[in-house]
């Protein structure tokens, strides 16, 4: 952990992590370097550091989650913080308490940082002007999942060196995916080419690149065309709970048009890496043989998630 002291953290501007689009490239690089240190530390004999000892971190999830929540909890514990997990059912939220009051209550019981997932886009934005604790977005509606984008970038760096100039292809239910949204911002900022591949009903509106409010992306309806010479392929989970009958005729049609299988993957570059934010619907968006092939880095993503979240918590505590 002594390496941490050698880092130049002057680029760091964040008190809260709401979004990825307000990160500068320098900040993103700082997160990557900090995560490198965390990663090295975790592969040593003693995973825990004491750098957040005495801090209390609360995770507050309005939506079910296993890996993101577990990842944050482990990250916090590895740094020596105390962690309290709040679920909506066991809190007074179900009694109609407002979000701001809930968060202020958590601050009052001693939370120094709050990791929140919320089903409504922008929920964090509405609360943050009233908060003393650091607020970390663990996913909000269709809007953003900044730590996922950072851990995805970290994984790309680990395997391919840098995102600069890479052809990255995101496939699946992009319209409802905060993972896709944050990755589009993050990858574009780091110089990657972003290709979106989905049926038109699963794409968000307005992607005509005439606006400066959203990164420039390419849209390709045909998965084979999209995969040609790809360096990175991200398949998204087909969110059955968000699907409506008017978006897709059915799973079979989706599998026929958009499943990542070995034949299709062969169109990509030989060094291609296959990513997925998880949990994977095996043989729906991704064929089993691809998921368990050497090209798939899904488990690396999960491992890296802990290091990247440790980096975020660490930077917030000293920033």
């Amino acid at each position, binding site marked *: 952990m002594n390496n941490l002291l050698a880092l130049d953290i002057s680029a760091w501007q964040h008190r809260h992590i709401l979004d990825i689009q307000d990160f500068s490239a320098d900040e993103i690089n700082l997160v990557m370097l900090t995560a490198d240190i965390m990663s090295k530390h975790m592969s040593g004999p003693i995973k825990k550091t004491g750098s957040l000892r005495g801090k209390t971190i609360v995770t507050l999830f309005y939506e079910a989650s296993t890996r993101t929540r577990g990842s944050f909890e482990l990250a916090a514990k590895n740094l020596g913080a105390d962690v309290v997990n709040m679920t909506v059912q066991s809190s007074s939220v179900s009694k109609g308490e407002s979000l*701001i009051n809930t968060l202020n209550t958590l601050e009052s019981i001693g939370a120094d940082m709050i990791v929140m997932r919320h089903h409504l*886009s922008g929920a964090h934005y509405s609360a943050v002007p009233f908060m003393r604790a650091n607020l970390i977005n663990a996913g909000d509606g269709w809007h953003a999942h900044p730590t996922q984008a950072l851990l995805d970038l970290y994984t790309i760096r680990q395997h391919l060196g840098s995102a600069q100039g890479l052809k990255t292809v995101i496939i699946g239910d992009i319209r409802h995916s905060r993972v896709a*949204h944050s990755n589009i911002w993050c990858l574009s900022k780091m110089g990657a080419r972003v290709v979106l591949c989905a049926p038109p009903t699963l794409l968000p509106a*307005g992607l*005509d690149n005439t606006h400066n409010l959203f990164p420039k992306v390419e849209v390709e309806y045909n998965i084979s065309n999209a995969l040609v010479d790809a360096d990175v392929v991200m398949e998204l989970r087909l969110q059955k709970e968000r699907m409506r009958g008017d978006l897709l005729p059915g799973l079979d049609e989706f599998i026929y048009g958009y499943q990542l299988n070995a034949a299709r993957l062969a169109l990509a570059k030989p060094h291609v890496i296959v990513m997925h934010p998880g949990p994977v619907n095996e043989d729906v968006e991704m064929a089993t043989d691809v998921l368990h092939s050497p090209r798939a880095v899904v488990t690396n993503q999960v491992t890296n998630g802990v290091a990247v979240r440790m980096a975020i918590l660490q930077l917030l505590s000293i920033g």
Partner: protein
Amino acid sequence: MKDILIKNGRIINPATGTDEIGDLLLSNGRIKQLGQNISCQNNETIDATSLVVCPGFVDLHCHLRQPGFEAKETISSGSKAAAKGGFTTVCCMPNTNPPLDNLPLITYVNTIAEKEASIRILPIGCITRARKGDELADMAAMAQAGVVGFSDDGSYVKNPQIMRRAMEYSLPLGLPVIEHCEDTALAADGQMNEGIVATALGLCGIPAAAEDVAVARDIILAELTGARLHIAHVSTKGAVELIRQGKKRGVRLTAEVTPHHLALTEERVLGFNTQAKVAPPLRTQSDIDALIEGLIDGTIDAIATDHAPHTINDKLCEFGSAACGISGLETAFAVLMKLVHSGKLPLPMLIAKLTNEPASILRMRLGSLEVGAPADIAIFAPDIEWTVDTANFASKGHNTPFAGETLKGKVRTTIYSGQIVYQDNE
């Protein structure tokens, strides 16, 4: 009651094309004389030098929230806000609790207005019982009680057969059906205008087509029935064009637009700004350009506030949970003056859209300075700058995206029926 003599103002009366410096004498609640160098005994004189004198504004569309939502607004507080905004007549929408769908409820509003309102309140009755869209409300009885139109505002009348029958039933009553045109299926779950801003925010969008489809259907039904149709809060370029074509074919059609749809684009929502959440949603610059064009060529008859007051907590929450609406009566005029100051709309035309044009939709002798008309007057300073501070609002609703903005154009005096009901003392 003392006579009021308004001296030396720029008198603009769009109904007659008057735009001249002169005097205006009010007596017994009526306009007595308009001319030069008027003098009279026993009067209260208002020096209107460098000010504009025009008919009091007529708002075809506001929400006064009483009965049922008195924490948001009451007829009393809403009428004070209206007076502060230069309005002397406002039509209030029936989406109260209970909704205004029968005679006793209309009588209730009229009674409260008589007792507590400082200006003229004209209720609008529901089209359908409880605004549910299933069966017609007591339209004839409400017409007897004095409603000026029928609307399920806030909700679209989904079933075209119900809409057709409502239009037919309105024919002998002579009153317009006022529709909130937003196709329910196309707008489903939408939080703001569909497009790249909604995409960037991860919010579900409402396409302009949701409005266009609804407007097209209702114009066709108005054509079928011969009924009077008034389109509330037009927000899209497509709707403007549909209304233009419908009017050309002779459909009995009128339309209104709000100040916020003329002034703001969807980008005001960036940062998840709940104050910019409104139905229909804020659209794009090309929609604004089409709306202004529609005002100028007469496609859009009137400007209406859609004043929609809410409590602080109605807006202090997640964007998806926030209420729709803007408290607009007190900022409407100054926001609209931007169009005048930027040269997009001549001042007399702006005043027409706020006075005689909406009055003609109501078929009432309002919004004009003709001798004998009710002495409803707005006096404003076109060039005075002021900063919107919701702490000074008369409305209970402090929900406005214009808070903190400096606007140019300020109402100084509002006179209703010959009585000064608002005087700006700053």
